[in-house]
């Protein structure tokens, strides 16, 4: 199997504080990997670098042989738009937009037929089993529903990999299970590569691989 993601010798410092220290890792195509570690160990920072949200101080990242190491901010934005899906702990939905508009958000800057855009968003909401809430704003949705909308949004650009930073962190255990099932389903049925950060030992254990982080280093 070939690698969807390759990172080599990544370091990230904020002024004097080194948060990520010489991290090298690969994620295989279709792999569901899980990043665990204590709070403050640098998981979110590493995820940001791998997903092109933030630039490393040192090191190289490439996704499907597209190197983003020397990309400009603009190129990184286009890279995120085309290749990456995001799921966050606090959902990060736009409060003024309804569910389907939030799903379609990454597509708004893309020139395409309005109807197709909306159709694709609604389709994904249906897949997430909340098609009936398509016209509702996030404020009227439950946490689990919000996360379903967010997952639909992560899929709308047909990404090559999904980065999920504690996607169940704000949900109760039952809802967490359901969200986890969705992600697993995406991984198994669609072959979607996923890198997820979690604090939950059980959830981590149910993925393909666990990557441990400690003090900015990948320890295993």
């Amino acid at each position: 199997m070939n690698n969807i993601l390759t990172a080599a010798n990544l370091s990230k410092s904020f002024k004097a504080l080194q948060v990520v220290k010489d991290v090298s890792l690969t994620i295989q195509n279709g792999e569901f990997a899980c990043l665990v570690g204590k709070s403050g160990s640098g998981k979110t920072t590493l995820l940001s670098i791998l997903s092109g949200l933030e630039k490393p101080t040192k090191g190289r990242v490439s996704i499907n042989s597209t190197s983003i190491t020397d990309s400009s901010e603009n190129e990184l934005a286009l890279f995120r738009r085309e290749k990456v899906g995001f799921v966050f702990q606090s959902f990060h939905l736009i409060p003024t937009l309804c569910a389907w508009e939030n799903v379609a958000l990454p597509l708004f800057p893309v020139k395409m037929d309005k109807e197709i855009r909306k159709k694709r968003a609604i389709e994904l909401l249906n897949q997430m089993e909340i098609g009936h809430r398509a016209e509702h704003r996030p404020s009227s949705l439950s946490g689990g529903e919000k996360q379903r909308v967010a997952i639909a949004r992560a899929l709308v650009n047909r990404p090559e990999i999904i980065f999920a930073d504690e996607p169940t962190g704000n949900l109760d255990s039952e809802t967490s299970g359901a969200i986890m099932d969705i992600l697993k389903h995406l991984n198994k049925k669609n072959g979607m590569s996923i890198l997820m950060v979690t604090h939950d030992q059980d959830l981590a254990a149910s993925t393909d691989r666990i990557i441990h982080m400690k003090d900015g280093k990948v320890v295993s």
Partner: protein
Amino acid sequence: MYYPYIIKELRHRHNRTLVNILGISFGIALFISINALSSAYKKAAGQPFKDMGADLIVQRAQKQQNNPGSQPKSMRGIRLPFSNQLFSKQDLIELKNLEDINAAAQALLLWEFTKTGFTSIMGVDLQQPALGGLKAKNWIYKGRFPDKKGEIALEKHFAKFKKIKPGSSFMISGQTFDVVGTIEIKEGAQVSAANIYMLIDDARGLLGKSTGAVNLIYLGLKDPSMQNRIKSQISSKIKGASINSSDSFLELMGGVSMISDKFSLIASMVGLLGAALLIIKTMTSNLVERSYDIGILKAMGWTRADIQKQLMVETFIQAIAGGLLGILMGYLISFLLGFLSISIPVPWEMGFVPSMAKQTQALNEIVRLPISVSVSLSASAMGLSVVIGCITGYILGKRTERMKPADIFRQL
């Protein structure tokens, strides 16, 4: 670009949107009313001259004119007004040789002092273009304008005061004249008003000069914008000439009328700048609130340009709405200002009435402010609000450049 998003944002933050729109509209309304007001005053000041058909009035004041208000005790009978001394032959030739003059008319203005008061007498030449004093022949109230020796017409109020009707006779300095008509001075034409009108040769006779005596010259210019150049030409050629134009009124009016083009530009720019700063300020605090959204948009792959466009259109819509509202308010303010009456003070040397007699005849003209908002003024106001929208949108866009999603999300 997704327009419903823009509309939803504006509606969601309706208080902010309203403040922005009102801020711009006040700035625009200020811009419109200041400009309309200053051009209205200019128009009003130009009115007396427009009614006279002349652009310039040339006169020559008495040499030692220290105190125009003092009346020598011995003064009696027919006199030249202080401000209207006779022109020399040389002066008249110089004036005749001026270029860019469309029409010129000469007149002889006299004062008669009697025991009971004074009268002003305007001698006009029927052979000359109908400028200035001769315009009075178009303002006949009753009877006709004098066209023969020994005939006079009286100004309506003067005739009423003296209880004289056309057909009777009137004594001036011991000579008897036939009153052939009365004249009604048009509003705004006070500067060329006199109590008595007669042929210029009769006036010369009263003064005791036979030919060529002239102390008042009306000039119409081919191009009124050359006014200042011709003014300085005349004053260099004719020593002691005082030349009046509509500008002379503006100087006297003072106050709002002194608003020069430059000042009104600066004042309205300050208003607009205030509006722009307001919208930048409210939008910037808006940005703080919205940094979360901007973080999301950036994470989702919106480029700088995409976000810039979004913010530009948002400010643009507010600027357009504010501009339209401001133009409406400007129209309303101007409409209300149009009910104002203003008094146009007449320069003393053009009152044609002895200055010690001011109490009997006020040297002011009262006119309604001729204010109007021109299409080009509204258009430039609209243009300005568009510019404000673009600039503030651009500045806001610039401010989002350094916002990083990773930082924004961490701060939540």
